[in-house]
């Protein structure tokens, strides 16, 4: 029995390696997706290494250089409180990436098990979960965030929570849909015959087979979360000054639209690039993993 199993396992590993090579080839045929991945990784790297990359610390102010244009001391100039704009952009990348990535991960960790339960057991479990999801959906994420900010006070953590909660229905729907389809696959009754309990079936058989879809969904949820953080911080409901994020930079730049437009342009461009990168990468990834596309 064990010999047979190990042969099957070897075959499985070989199959997986071949499949990965095929996926990589398909991916590299899409220059846009590759560019998206590179840029997205770039932002992640900047976020992680912010303390090493930023010329000044986050709170450093120079009251003699307020609203200054770019100079050798301040490559992108300064804002109305004398902060170096380039440093704020770099530190802001960290905050925005944190909210974007962690809120999505939070949503995934909470929502996927719930969605899988709904899809696996169906019946009244599914019905209850569906209604609760609808209640969650009835509150647009901004209203949710506004409410959370009122209850818990505005902060980076609460922006993460609000966006995470907002992304939960999407993940529940995906997980549920995938589970509904996958539970009909042949290996499920085989596993039941082998004596596997529900938990084993769900986590060892069904979950691994939906990783592709989950990865794509995650990659496509992150840009929404980054945009969401920008909106929340802009409205004063997320990251609070003096901490820097792209949204708070836009909030600080708004009173100076006439005098210093550039202060609005820099964080805006950063947001657009990051969102575009994740979107393009996610789109490409989806195409690559979709068996129906031929290239």
């Amino acid at each position, binding site marked *: 029995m064990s010999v047979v199993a190990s042969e099957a396992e070897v075959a499985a590993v070989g199959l997986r390696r071949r499949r990965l090579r095929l996926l990589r080839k398909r991916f590299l045929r899409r220059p846009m997706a590759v560019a998206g991945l590179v840029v997205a990784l770039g932002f992640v790297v900047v976020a992680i290494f912010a303390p090493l990359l930023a010329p000044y610390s986050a709170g450093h102010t120079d*009251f003699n250089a307020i609203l200054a244009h770019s100079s050798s001391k301040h490559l992108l100039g300064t804002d109305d*409180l004398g902060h170096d704009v380039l440093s704020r952009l770099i530190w802001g990348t960290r905050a925005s990436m944190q909210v974007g990535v962690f809120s999505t991960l939070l949503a995934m960790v909470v929502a996927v098990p719930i969605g899988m339960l709904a899809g696996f057991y169906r019946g009244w479990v599914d019905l209850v979960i569906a209604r609760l999801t609808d209640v969650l959906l009835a509150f647009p994420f901004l209203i949710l965030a506004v409410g959370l900010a009122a209850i818990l006070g505005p902060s980076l953590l609460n922006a993460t929570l609000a966006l995470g909660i907002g992304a939960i229905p999407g993940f529940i729907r995906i997980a549920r849909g995938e589970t509904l389809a996958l539970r009909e696959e042949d290996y499920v009754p085989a596993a039941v015959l082998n004596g596997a309990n529900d938990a084993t079936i769900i986590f060892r058989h069904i979950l691994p087979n939906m990783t592709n879809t989950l990865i794509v969904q995650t990659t496509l949820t992150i840009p929404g979360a980054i945009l969401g953080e920008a909106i929340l911080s802009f409205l004063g409901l997320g990251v609070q*000054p*003096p901490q820097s994020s792209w949204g708070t930079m836009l909030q600080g730049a*708004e*009173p100076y639209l*006439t005098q210093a437009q550039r202060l609005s342009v820099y964080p805006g461009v950063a947001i657009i690039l990051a969102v575009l990168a994740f979107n393009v990468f996610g789109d490409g990834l989806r195409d690559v993993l979709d068996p129906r596309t031929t290239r």
Partner: protein
Amino acid sequence: MNRKRIGAAVGAGVAAGLLALMISAAAGASAKQATKFKPGGTLVVAMTLGEPDALDPTLARTFSGREVFLTMCEKLYDLDRHTNIVPQLAAALPKVSSDKLTVTIPLRHGIKFNDGTPFNANAVVQTMNHYLTTKGSVRASEISTVASVKAKGKYAVVFHLKTAYSPLTAQLADRSGMILSLKQMTKLGANFARDPVCVGPFMYKNRVAGDSITVVKSPFYYAKNKVHFAKIVFKIYNDTTAAAQALKAGTVQAIDAIASTDLASIKADKALSVTKAAGLGYGGITINIGNRNGLLKLPYQNVGTDLAKSPKLRQAFEMAINRNTLNKVVFNGTVLPGCTPISPSSAWFDKSIKCTGYNPTQAKQLVQQSGISSPTVNLMVPTGTVALREAQFIQAEEAAVGIHVNVQSTDFVTSLSKADAGTYDAFLIGWSGRVDPDGNIYGFVATTGTLNDSGYSKNIVDRFLSHARSATTTKARRHYYHAAIQQLLNDRPLIYLDHPIASAGISKKVAGVTMYPDTLLRVAFAGYTK
């Protein structure tokens, strides 16, 4: 020609010339004095300091509400431009009895409310009773020393006081002195704010929550010939930059307060003029000394933070801040540096008080002497660009003398709650200011003061302040306030930093808009120029 005739001719010529000059000067002067107003037109005023709350003087608490009331709810007394109290609906200043417990106020004759009903002593009495007895009345605490109000004939009222209270007249020059129409009070009761009726040059027309309040010229006003606009619309602007843009575009013709960031561009605009008034308020830092369990949970006990337990550290804290640089860097020169609760624009300003000057060297020594190693202060700051800038400036100044300041940016409403609860170390907050010095001091530092977030309690200060309340001559009251302020400057429950100068922006097409030291924009008697 002989010399005498030439002399006479020259003399006559000069005299004629002088006469002509005098006549033309007089004509010119009188032409300047009599500004020609175009009757009618709508004035749109941008309100940037928050939206008025309920338009019922019984419940009203906001600064912006007072601006709207100026057009539609006259008071027993008002201020003149030197913050002296002058009669408005009253006929003369009040007469105080020798035992200081009876105050008689004569009323003007022939005035109508904006629903046509007559203004008389009965209306005043009913209004005062309404203020004193209505559940949730905000005015009750302002006139709490009043035991009863009785009419004396048709045009005089008598206030019977529980204890002597000199600030009463000042209170009657604010919302507590606004007289409501008896007919409307009876008709609407608690819903008075839906359609308020008082005496005023304008009357309430309608309101869109969060957006605008409209008032129209009243046909019942006693000085109709002084009123020029047909309609005034108060528009709420949450964004000061948007308000400044609207003023420049002509969508609004006046802004009640220009933010320091927009001041330069408005001054540069040829079609706009800027009116300034040094206000009655102050900006400063409130230090939590004794507020351990919450406001008015007596007795106050020292909370034990670095600043609370060391008067030397508080002195160092004050000496580390350069108020002139603060003014320049943080406020763009739009405040008056100061160190007392009374603004120089107030008639009660005390020139003789000496301030603690900027002295970082001595501050460093005091920090050593305090015996606290690496002193730390958590500074609670309400959200707002300027407040944040000020906090960061203070942080930098204190770091230079060895005091570490943590800036805690907190939402405004939450910060007020925390201040009241005593869950803070230091609070960067100001006060809009009142005409009577009692309004700027008592509530904050008296043991039973309802705004005493500092938890400061000192018998001698309490005694000075209560004597100041009951004294009736200005000289006596000045003496007590001098003593109280000296003690406060020594103990530092609050460190006073500056007195804001309010700037209002007005289109040059409009004339007659004024602003007194209470910094309320007065538009009721303005108008478009011909």
